[in-house]
């Protein structure tokens, strides 16, 4: 009985409103605000009613505030992963636990990640104890449609109020995988996309050829309207430089808000991306010609894109984009090793994802009025050996527990390792 109740109490503490809103002052901190204040070396951050009230050099903590002494260590905004499938899959090899794609569905663009999201996924505590507080969770293109569906921005700190922004973006696959889906060539990809948009434009008018079956369902058409109106970003997976230029032209012709994901060769067309203000979601580890569409991949791509003025988000682009979303700070560290400015690297895993999905008025930086997603680190947040000391999501402290800490503790004790050796 005791064993069942304890974790439940821990979870209740995460629900905003379930616990009394605490006033917290994080003192003696090296605060990476990601805002206009830049880095504050001897800073104090005050949190009241789940929001950041004040941040500054040597501020006096308000009376009655709970003090968290950062001991001079870095404090950053909660990490924000620009591309995951968190809450949509538990174990890739167990299809019953996977809701990322729908190979046999008649619908595509209409598929909404928020409908499937499971806030009790064991991946969420595993991720948030490592400082991940927000994520875009996205479906994946499977089957016959270029459109994977719509993603959502979610909080990793609530079982009830996890939905930060529904329909935050539409996702599509272009390049090699898009060509395969569209029937076998890149030309087919673009012709198909143009026809889709034409179908959305003509929605409600009589069809020229009523016998020709539509590729889009009614709700697909509805879902694409805000994309065509330039209200909802279209995140396209695309790597080859020429494919990126085609995507830029397509976005310009149709007034779309484009985001490039993948972007292995984006550095070759960085000026064009910067000029059109198209962000790139990049995995800076991917420096091999693993595909013919990524022959020019290189380890310093993140630095080159940033230098050219392209807005950059860093996220894993491999089979572990969800289970190991927690590793995005290691990716950012590798980008720094290969020349990316340190604060730009931090922005790529905090503020820039918030900007890409249009939630930066409340998230992504440590500035007064923003939601208090805050991580107190025990060292350089991008370093392999560092770890969060405290993680706050909307001002609520994340319990330092997950399925993995329970497994660890069980076997440390059973095998009498380390601290258990003497007992």
């Amino acid at each position: 009985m005791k064993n069942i109740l304890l974790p439940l109490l821990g979870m209740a503490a995460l629900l905003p409103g379930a616990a009394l809103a605490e006033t917290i002052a994080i003192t003696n901190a090296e605060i990476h605000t990601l805002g206009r204040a830049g880095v504050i070396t001897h800073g104090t951050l005050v949190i009241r009613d789940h929001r950041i009230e004040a941040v500054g050099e040597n501020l006096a903590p308000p009376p009655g505030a709970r003090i968290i002494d950062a001991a001079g260590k870095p404090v950053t905004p909660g990490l924000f992963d620009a591309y995951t499938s968190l809450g949509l899959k538990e174990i890739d090899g167990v299809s019953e636990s996977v809701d990322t794609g729908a190979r046999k569905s008649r619908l595509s663009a209409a598929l909404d990640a928020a409908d499937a999201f499971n806030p009790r996924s064991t991946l969420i505590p595993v991720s948030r104890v490592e400082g991940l507080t927000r994520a875009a969770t996205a479906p994946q293109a499977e089957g016959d449609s270029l459109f994977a569906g719509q993603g959502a921005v979610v909080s990793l700190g609530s079982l009830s109020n996890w939905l930060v922004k529904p329909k935050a973006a539409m996702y599509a696959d272009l390049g090699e995988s898009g060509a395969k889906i569209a029937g076998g060539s890149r030309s087919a990809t673009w012709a198909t996309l143009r026809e889709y948009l034409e179908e959305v434009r003509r929605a409600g008018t009589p069809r020229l050829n009523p016998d020709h079956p539509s590729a889009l369902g009614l709700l697909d058409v509805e879902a694409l309207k805000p994309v065509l109106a330039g209200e909802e970003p279209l995140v396209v997976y695309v790597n080859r430089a020429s494919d990126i230029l085609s995507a830029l032209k397509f976005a310009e012709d149709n007034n779309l808000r484009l985001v490039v994901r993948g972007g292995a060769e984006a550095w070759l067309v960085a000026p064009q991306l910067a000029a059109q203000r198209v962000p790139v979601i990049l995995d800076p580890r991917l420096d091999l010609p693993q595909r013919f569409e990524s022959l020019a991949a290189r380890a310093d791509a993140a630095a080159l894109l940033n230098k050219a003025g392209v807005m950059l988000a860093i996220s894993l682009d491999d089979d572990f984009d969800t289970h190991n979303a927690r590793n995005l700070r290691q990716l950012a560290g590798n980008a720094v090793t290969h020349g990316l400015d340190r604060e730009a690297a931090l922005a790529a895993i905090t503020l820039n994802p918030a900007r890409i999905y249009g939630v930066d008025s409340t998230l992504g930086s440590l500035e007064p009025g923003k939601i208090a997603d805050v991580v107190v680190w025990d060292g350089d947040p991008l370093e392999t050996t560092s770890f969060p000391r405290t993680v706050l999501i909307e001002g609520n402290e994340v319990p330092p527990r997950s399925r993995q800490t329970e497994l660890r503790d069980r076997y440390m004790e059973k095998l009498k390792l380390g601290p258990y050796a003497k007992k």
Partner: protein
Amino acid sequence: MRRHFCGAALAALLLGACGQEQDQGRQPYSSTYTPPAAEAVLIQHATVLTGTGSRIDDGDVLVQNRKIAQVGKGIAPPAGAAVVDAQNRWVTPGIIDPHSHLGVYPSPEVWATQDGNEATSPTTPNVWSEHSVWPQDPGFEQAREGGVTSMLILPGSANLIGGRGTLLKNVPATTYQEMKFPGAPQVLKMACGENPKRVYGKDRQQFPSTWMGDVAGYRAAFAKAAEYKAKRDAAKKGKDKGPDRDLGMDTLADVLDGKILVEMHCYRADQMATMLDVAQEFKFRIAAFHHAVEAYKIGPLLKAHDTCAVMWADWWGFKLEAYDGIRENIAMVDAAGACATVHSDDPIGVQRLNQEAGKAMAAGWRAGLDIPRERAIRWITANPAKALGVADRVGTLEPGKDGDVVVWSTDPFSVYAQADLVYIDGVLRFDRAHPPPLPDSDFKLGILGQGEEMP
């Protein structure tokens, strides 16, 4: 004879090594790697992690005649030696990846290159991964820039018994024989669990479709191998004409003779324990369990069997058998006194095995385990050398060992560490300050820089 064949175009294609001198008495498939002569190198004033468990601050390493000659403090440079001032830098043995598919699952990852799984039968001890190795895989040089000087190239895990694997030195080459680690034992790749029963049972309704089917498959193969070996042994004593030649049985009989080491893909603790029983039944030893996501649950059992665990720092959850993966796996196996090693199994991960070890070390610290850096470095140097049967040759900086040495820009466990200098058998094979003007891989030529001067 062999040189004569080199005149023929077809033979040239098959051998891929025309123009390169081959000894008349050379064993087929044996290594043709001979490190070129190189001047002696004295690396001075570094923080040296020797791989033996020691750390030397302000330490020196002398590499001479392809071997580690001396390790200590204040070593005088021999006449003619190059001197590297490594103040504020760190020195370690060359990194060894005990589980790689470079060359057999190379970049680019297209049908024509994917030669790692002979997934046409659940038991294929007859195939050798080295025959699939494409030396032009651009992944080799990227791994070298990450300080990796040797890696075990394994077949994939579709099969219960996947075939022989081979250790390579990470030197640029045109043929795999020019990379083959001279004298290293071959290994046998075997696989537990979900992969074989998925590939054959779930996808094709063939044997095996269950874990008990997997186990029956290993046992049947080794029962047959025991008979083959008995006939082979009798023939050696002149008491039997010997068995009809069977390439697969040759491999398994060599395992029973202890000449080929068993490297077994296995995730779950209970399945590793079952495999230790299978090995006991047929009197062979499992050198290492690979992936071993649940090794932390059975550290003492692994120690008792002198079987290594070859692990990722943090891969988990992609299959049910990987659901119990934890960051502390490597540190907990080490703390239990078993042989813990880090592997990549990945062309991207192999480039930063040092960082993977760093994450695993720090996870151990947080669990209250005392793991100094001079111990953790063994997870990617001395321990994989042990798991692959070459601990007498590589894995530590001790006089007489191969001159495989990495000079790191800073603490090698840091995300910011880069391999500045990579020596393999005393030859400088990567120098970050003087990168080669063109990539080593033929495949990477001509991709960039063409037509940039045109409008």
